[in-house]
């Protein structure tokens, strides 16, 4: 993992110990949590170490909406244009289902990564995607009976539940070297090795064509680069809060 992943709040939630074992085995959950913490620490240490030898610059990318306001939660990917560039190493991630919602509702994962889809609800879910980047279905289930799903093709994967229409989740499968989501101020910062890159932005509620927003970025060692991306169209409205009881059965 690259240092940029530390700013990817989605990733921090990816390895979720709640999902791996049922609530009835607390000692196992504690043990798993410790192991997971060590694994995350090891991953982050390794990733901090790897690019440190390459001269880099601190790059901040900010995203503003058509109204000039910052856009939190936008997905930023920074892909090297070098011929020998390789995508980030695959990871193992978890997207849970809690209170009839995907949790987290968006994950950014490198190509080749695997994602576990446990169901922590008391009702069954039936997960599907008909997105071009990955078509798959998970049969009706509770708990975590299914093996992880591997994502080998870059693109946006939209997830739904065949039982509960209100459930929508997103996986951004990327071959970029650096990626993350903008914070509350619409900014994302990463230490990026020098070179030429293509910067892309995407948001689940974006009306702009993502191709129109792509920009080239040249990073020189030691720079502090600030790059601004501005959407040309307003975002779609955010989904309504979930209703307190299960509605819309009719």
């Amino acid at each position, binding site marked *: 993992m690259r240092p940029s992943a530390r700013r990817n709040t989605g990733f921090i939630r990816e390895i979720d110990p709640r999902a791996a074992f049922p609530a009835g085995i607390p000692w196992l959950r504690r043990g798993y949590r410790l192991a997971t913490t060590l694994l995350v620490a090891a991953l982050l240490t390794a990733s901090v170490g790897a690019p440190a030898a390459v001269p880099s610059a601190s790059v901040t990318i900010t995203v503003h909406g058509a109204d000039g306001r910052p856009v939190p939660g936008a997905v930023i990917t920074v892909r090297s244009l070098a011929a020998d560039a390789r995508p980030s190493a695959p990871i193992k991630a978890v997207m849970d289902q809690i209170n009839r919602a995907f949790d987290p509702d968006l994950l950014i994962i490198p190509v080749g990564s695997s994602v576990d889809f446990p169901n922590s609800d008391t*009702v*069954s879910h039936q997960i599907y995607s008909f997105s071009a980047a990955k078509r798959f279905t998970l049969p009706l289930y509770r708990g975590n009976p299914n093996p992880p799903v591997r994502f080998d093709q870059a693109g946006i994967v939209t997830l739904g539940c065949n039982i509960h229409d209100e459930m929508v989740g997103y996986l951004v499968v990327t071959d970029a070297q650096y990626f993350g989501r903008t914070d509350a101020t619409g900014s994302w910062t990463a230490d990026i090795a020098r070179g030429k890159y293509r910067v892309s932005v995407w948001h689940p509620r974006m009306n702009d064509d993502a191709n129109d927003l792509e920009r080239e970025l040249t990073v020189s060692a030691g720079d502090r680069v600030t790059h601004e991306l501005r959407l040309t169209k307003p975002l779609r409205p955010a989904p309504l809060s979930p209703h307190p*009881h299960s509605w819309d059965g009719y």
Partner: protein
Amino acid sequence: MKSLAALLAAGVCLASIAHATDWEVDLDMRLLSSDGQRSYLDGGTGSLRYGQNQSGLQLGRLRLALDQNIGELWSVHLDASDWGDHDKNPIDLTEAYLLFRPYPFDGLRARVKAGAFYAPISLENRGPGWESPYTLTPSALNTWIGEELRTIGLEGQIDWLGTRTGHLFDVGLTGAVYGWNEPAGVALASQGFMLDDRQTTLFGRVNPTPGLDDPHEVFHEIDGRKGVYAGIEARFLDRLVVRALRYDNRSDPTQQDRATHTFAWLTTFNSAGARLESANGWTGIAQWLQGETTISPHHLRFGYPFDAKFLLISKQIGRHTFSARYDRFEVLTNFVTATGDNYAQYGHAWTIAYLFEPNTHWRFALEWLDVSTESALREAILPSAEVSRERKIEASFRYALGSEVR
């Protein structure tokens, strides 16, 4: 109370044995004060579920719902209720159907239902058990649907899920073929529109014309002809739902059941409605229904054109929901009645409700309802009471338990 014990026992058994079964048991008790006439459900001509004679503590509803998956793509849904009244069966089904739901493919999704279920008309009855999350009592329009309409047959639905493919809206088409509904329309012609939350059960009986008829089964086949409906629904994100539906039960209005003497009512209508929701908790619903129900005994034709509409405004603040609704409705006649009128009923109603769900198990509700009606039947029975204003204030305490309760 036997039915209560039976339902609770069934729920406990299900909890222990049916891992793959989603289930829910709800108990809804009511405390009310009504100045209404004896309810039409109780052999009177009142428009409310409870008349003055029933003020006090009542069992609003005891409900058991089961969803059982069969393999990957099929499931069975059963919804049974005890309404605490004097119907033939203490517990009976309001819905029972088999659902086929293949996985969506390329943005298209299909659903097929077979059994007994509600047509997709109401925009307020969106909660479990076809209840409204805004008021205790549904609108006059949807009260009639709960009382006399149930699709007993086959329904197909196909949806284009645009919002899953980067678009702003979804569109769905629905069509159905059904039977066992020829009596649908008799209550409307006899008494007109009512305001109550009791849903007629599949084997239950109603008494549309007290003193003139015996109670009869609403869902009954008389002429062997199948009815149809077709509808369209469009959804803009999760903010706006617009529905329209054309219903025609294709009954032969000259036919009459030989045993019960119940007529086959030819009932046709158009319905349309919209529901708009905002991010700050506001909901607005407008719904409209217009049609006619007809019988033709002995080469005569008795037609009852009807029209009902309502507007509901609701505001949700956390777990508190405040709602207000205005109903307007009328049932006319294409002939002059015995009382010299050319209407069966018309009226209007105001409903104000407050609902509070402190957690997923409990719901407390308080509702005030004021309905004014003018009824030809009431005038025939009680000439001094042709015009009636009925009011009630009703509190509800509901506890829900089960795997489907979050």
